[in-house]
C-alpha cells in the first residue's frame, strides 16, 4: 500500500484531471485556452524544429504527386535521383516542397482562392481516433477558426483551433467532419461526412432521386462567406453506391482526393473567391473537368490540355450556373449548419 503522501498526491492529480475534463466539456473560452496557447507555443517551436530535421528523411518527399500522374512521376523521380545522386537529400526535399507549392498555386489560382501556405508539423496519434494535424501558421499569420485548408490535390479540412503560431486542422476524414458537397457537372448536392478511416467518406444526397454514377467527382458546395468551406474545392470521387434511386438510405462511398496520411505543404484559404469557381479546380479526368473561359484559370486549362485532351469539354452552362448558385446558397448553409 502506498504511503499517505503518495495517496494525497494521486488524489490531487486526479481531481485536477477531472477539473480539466469538466472545463473542457463545458466548452467556451475558459482558462484552458490560455494554457493551450502557452503549451502550443512551446511545443510548436520544438515540433517545427524536429520536423525540419526529420522531413528530408521521411517518405514525405514522395507524397506530393497527384493520384493521376503518380506513375510518370515515379519514373521522373528515378531519373532525377540518378542525375542528382551526389546532391544532398535536403535538396531533394526542397524540390519536393517546391513542387507541392506549385500544385497548391495551381489549385488556388484555378479557384481564385487567396491562400496562406503552411506546413504540417505534427499529427495526432492514431489511438485517439481523431484525424487532426498541426500546422505552423496561426493567428499571427492571419489564420482564423473555420478557414478552409487545401493542398494541391483538393480539400484537406478546416481550421479547428488557432494559437498564435500554430493551428489545429480537422481533416475531412474525421468522424466529426461534414462538408456540403456538390456532384461535379450537375447541381446535385449532399453532405460528405468523414468515417474516421483515411480512405473513405460517406456522401448522402439531399435528393434521393438524383442520379449518381461511380467515378463522379465531388466538389465543395461552399458556405456563406466561404466558412467553414470555400466553394469549388475537389473533395473526392464516388467509389461505391449502396441503395438504389428513391431509397432514403442511399449512401455513396467517397474516396478523398487528398491522401491525409501524407500531408506536408497545405494552404489555408484566407479569402474565398467572389464567384463560385464551379468545376474548374477539379483535376482533368475522364471528361469530368470543365474549363472556364476566364484568364485567371488558364493555368488549369493548360494542365488539362497537357494530360488529357478529352477533358476540355466546355459545359457551356457557366453563365446560368453563376445565377443559380446564389439561390442554392441558402440550401448549402443549412447543409453546412450541422458541422459545428
Amino acid at each position, binding site marked *: 500500500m502506498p504511503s499517505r503522501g503518495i495517496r494525497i498526491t494521486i488524489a490531487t492529480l486526479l481531481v485536477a484531471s477531472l477539473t480539466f*475534463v469538466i472545463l473542457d466539456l463545458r466548452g467556451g473560452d475558459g482558462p484552458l485556452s490560455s494554457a493551450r496557447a502557452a503549451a502550443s507555443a512551446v511545443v510548436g517551436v520544438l515540433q517545427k524544429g524536429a520536423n525540419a530535421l526529420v522531413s528530408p528523411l521521411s517518405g514525405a518527399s514522395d507524397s506530393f504527386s497527384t493520384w493521376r500522374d503518380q506513375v510518370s512521376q515515379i519514373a521522373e523521380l528515378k531519373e532525377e535521383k540518378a542525375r542528382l545522386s551526389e546532391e544532398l537529400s535536403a535538396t531533394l526535399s526542397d524540390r519536393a516542397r517546391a513542387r507541392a507549392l506549385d500544385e497548391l498555386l495551381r489549385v488556388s489560382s484555378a479557384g481564385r482562392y487567396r491562400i496562406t501556405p503552411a506546413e504540417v508539423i505534427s499529427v495526432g496519434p492514431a489511438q485517439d481516433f*481523431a484525424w487532426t494535424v*498541426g500546422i505552423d501558421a496561426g493567428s499571427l499569420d492571419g489564420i482564423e477558426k473555420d478557414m478552409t485548408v487545401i493542398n494541391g490535390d483538393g480539400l484537406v479540412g478546416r481550421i479547428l483551433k488557432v*494559437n498564435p503560431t*500554430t493551428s489545429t486542422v480537422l481533416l475531412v476524414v474525421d468522424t466529426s467532419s461534414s462538408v456540403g458537397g456538390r456532384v461535379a457537372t450537375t447541381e446535385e448536392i449532399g453532405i460528405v461526412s468523414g468515417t474516421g478511416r483515411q480512405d473513405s467518406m460517406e456522401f448522402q444526397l439531399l435528393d434521393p432521386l438524383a442520379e449518381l454514377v461511380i467515378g463522379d467527382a465531388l466538389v465543395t458546395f461552399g458556405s456563406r462567406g466561404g466558412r467553414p468551406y470555400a466553394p469549388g474545392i475537389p473533395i473526392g470521387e464516388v467509389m461505391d453506391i449502396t441503395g438504389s434511386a428513391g431509397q432514403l438510405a442511399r449512401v455513396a462511398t467517397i474516396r478523398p482526393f487528398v491522401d491525409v496520411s501524407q500531408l506536408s505543404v497545405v494552404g489555408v484559404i484566407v479569402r474565398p473567391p467572389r464567384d463560385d469557381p464551379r468545376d474548374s479546380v477539379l483535376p482533368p479526368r475522364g471528361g469530368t473537368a470543365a474549363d472556364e473561359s476566364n484568364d485567371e484559370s488558364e493555368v488549369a486549362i493548360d494542365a488539362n490540355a497537357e494530360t488529357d485532351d478529352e477533358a476540355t469539354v466546355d459545359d457551356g452552362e457557366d453563365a446560368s450556373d453563376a445565377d443559380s448558385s446564389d439561390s442554392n446558397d441558402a440550401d448549402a448553409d443549412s447543409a453546412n449548419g450541422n458541422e459545428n
Partner: protein
Amino acid sequence: MIIRQLVVIGSLLLAAVVLQTTVLSRLGLPGATPDLVVVTVVAVALALGPGPGALTGFLGGALLDIATPSDAIVGLASIVLVGVGLVVGVSLDRDEFNIWVTSLVAGAACGAAALATALLSAVLGSERIIWDVVPGVTLTTVLYGLILGRVMIPLVGLLSRRLVPEAYQD
C-alpha cells in the same frame, strides 16, 4: 531534489510529446501510433516510484491533450496516465525484474491506456471511436510499447541515477 526531479521529468516529457507528434505519428506504421509518452511514464514510475510516476502521467497527459494537434477531451489522458504511473510504480520495483519483463509491462501499459482512453471518451460522448479497429490498435500499441520500453526504460533509469542520485539512497 524535487526541483531537479521536476526538470528531468519535464524535459523527458517535452521530448516524448514532440517526438511522438512529429516523428512517430508520421512514420505511417500500421495500427496505432507508438505511444512514447506512456512508455516514458512507465519508465519514470519504475525508476523513481509511484509518486513521480503519477506526476509524470498527469503532466504528460495534460501536455498531450493541450498541445497543438490534439482534439481530445483535455484531462482524459491525465486520468489514464496517472493510473498507469501509480499502478506500475506501486507494483514493480526497479531492481526486481529483468529488462524484458519491464518492457512487456510498458507494452501492456500502452495497450491498457489505449483501451481505457477509448472507453472513457466513449462514455464522455465522443463519437470517434471505431470499435472494430480498437483490437488492432491495442495489439500494435502493445508491440510498439514493448520495443520503445526496451530502449526507454534503461535510458530513463540511467538518466535518473545520474541526475537524481538522492532517489537511489535507500
